């Protein structure tokens, strides 16, 4: 178990930091953003050569460590390493969308003398359904601007994940020679990059990944609340396969259609409805516990960002205007990036604590 307060005090010599010698900083290679959703990875890297800038994006799958026998497993594990070798980076940020990551807010009394980290640990102990000793905890202290007038409590958003899961991801990416020094959720990585003419505009960010979907409410560049649903693109595919008795490839083609037939929309409607209900719940929570805002917009990124039926459904059901992800995200130069790689691209531009 660890908490960010302890991490901040730990005298870890970070080669990427300014204090480290230049030869340990990974050269001039730009950071890699890796979106992890189960065993599939979406990778983005911003490349700059002189005045020319461009994005390099790609997808690959991690082999399951238990699926294949030993020799075949070794070969299978080498294959992604070869495929990923075209992405050479000094450091990487992993953006994880997993239902195993718990995100919950906590209210702490401002007058309490005990350290915030200690109080977070005490309260989080009751919120987790596994021993806190097997968890990795970190938290964000929300800015005072989001608090309701007269509310003196400290509000923190706690992120918790099983340590074994984090170690598995880190080891898998280490095997691909990507040195991940930061692992965060899509909401956290997207929040600082969202631009809006109105400073206090609130955004509902929906990021659909492979096996999970992240819902986050973002304001002032901070995540107010984040929920991770246990289904993503894979869940939609499985539902199509089950209902229509299709192969995986046929289901994928059907799902990739921007405006699918009404039957398909009907099949996917329960999941979309669940998404809307969760989004409504998140927005209602934020309206109830944080400062009111006049403008709220919807931002859809991830696998189905270009899915017209889903866009229409969300706009209609949530009653929110949808903003174009590519235009709304403050990304660096280069060609316009696919919204499916938005989280990975923001991860590539992420500056971990101590850098930048």
């Amino acid at each position, binding site marked *: 178990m660890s908490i960010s307060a302890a*991490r901040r005090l730990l005298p870890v010599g970070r080669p990427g930091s300014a204090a480290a010698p230049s030869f340990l900083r990974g050269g001039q290679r730009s950071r890699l953003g890796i979106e992890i959703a189960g065993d599939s990875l979406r990778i983005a890297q911003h490349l700059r050569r002189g005045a020319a800038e461009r994005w390099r994006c790609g997808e690959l799958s991690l082999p399951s460590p238990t699926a294949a026998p030993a020799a075949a497993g070794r070969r299978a594990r080498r294959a992604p390493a070869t495929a990923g070798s075209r992405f050479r980076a000094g450091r990487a940020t992993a953006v*994880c969308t997993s239902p195993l990551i718990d995100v919950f807010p906590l209210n702490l009394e401002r007058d309490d003398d005990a350290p915030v980290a200690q109080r977070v640990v005490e309260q989080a102990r009751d919120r987790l359904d596994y021993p806190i000793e097997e968890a990795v905890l970190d938290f964000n202290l929300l800015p005072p601007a989001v608090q309701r007038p007269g509310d003196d409590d400290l509000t923190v958003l706690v992120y918790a994940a099983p340590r074994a899961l984090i170690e598995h991801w880190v080891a898998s990416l280490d095997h691909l020679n990507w040195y*991940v020094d930061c692992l965060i959720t899509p909401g956290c990585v997207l929040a600082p990059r969202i631009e809006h003419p109105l400073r206090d505009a609130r955004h509902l960010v929906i990021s659909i990944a492979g096996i999970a979907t992240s819902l986050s409410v973002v304001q002032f560049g901070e995540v107010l609340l984040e929920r991770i649903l246990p289904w993503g693109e894979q869940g939609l595919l499985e539902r199509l396969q089950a209902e229509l008795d299709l192969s995986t490839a046929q289901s994928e083609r059907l799902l990739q259609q921007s405006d699918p037939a009404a039957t398909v929309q009907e099949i996917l409607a329960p999941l979309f409805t669940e998404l809307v209900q969760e989004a409504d719940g998140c927005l209602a929570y934020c309206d109830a516990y944080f400062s009111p805002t006049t403008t709220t917009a919807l931002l859809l990124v991830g696998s189905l960002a270009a899915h017209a039926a889903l866009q229409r459904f969300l706009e209609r059901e949530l009653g929110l205007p949808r903003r174009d992800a590519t235009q709304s995200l403050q990304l660096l130069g280069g060609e316009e990036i696919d919204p499916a790689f938005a989280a990975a691209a923001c991860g590539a531009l*992420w500056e971990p604590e101590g850098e930048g």
Partner: protein
Amino acid sequence: MSGLNLIPPDLLARREARRLLRFWSWRIGASVLLLGGLFLLLHEVAADRFAEVEQISGRYDDLQGRLRSAEDLILERDRLAERRAVIDLIRDEHPADAFLFALGEALTPDSYLTFLELRRCAPAGEEAQSDPCRATLRIRGQAADHGRVGAILHGLSQAPRFADATLLSVQEPQRSGADRAVEFEITATLRESDE
């Protein structure tokens, strides 16, 4: 940006230590290999140089050995030169092939020699002589008749290589029969002027 990070600090520190260990291990390993390679290269170069020095040293010893026997070679050369001088002296003073050719010319076709003796003079200075020494040729042989003996004597007298050709004896054959050859003995001196 928030400082959120779900990678626990101890894992980060452990990975950082591993990374640094790999970083330095690789470089130290490469340095050791490089130094080893350089050492082997220097060893090879030094071995070549040592072999070259050994070779040159061997040649020097060989040359030293040859230099030690040079005096013997000079002595041998002098000895051979002396022998050669004697042979040349003999050849020049008594050219045997010319004498034999002249003798052959003087003999008649049906005569043959049974004895030939050449008496040379002693080398100059060995013993003092009142008369100048002259090499003499003494031959014995058989001819068909007296006329042939006379022809041989005449031939020797006329040959420029011989002088003072003298018929010492002529004997008739003792037994009678078809073989009635005459035995003769002639002496002559070798002509000094032709030497």
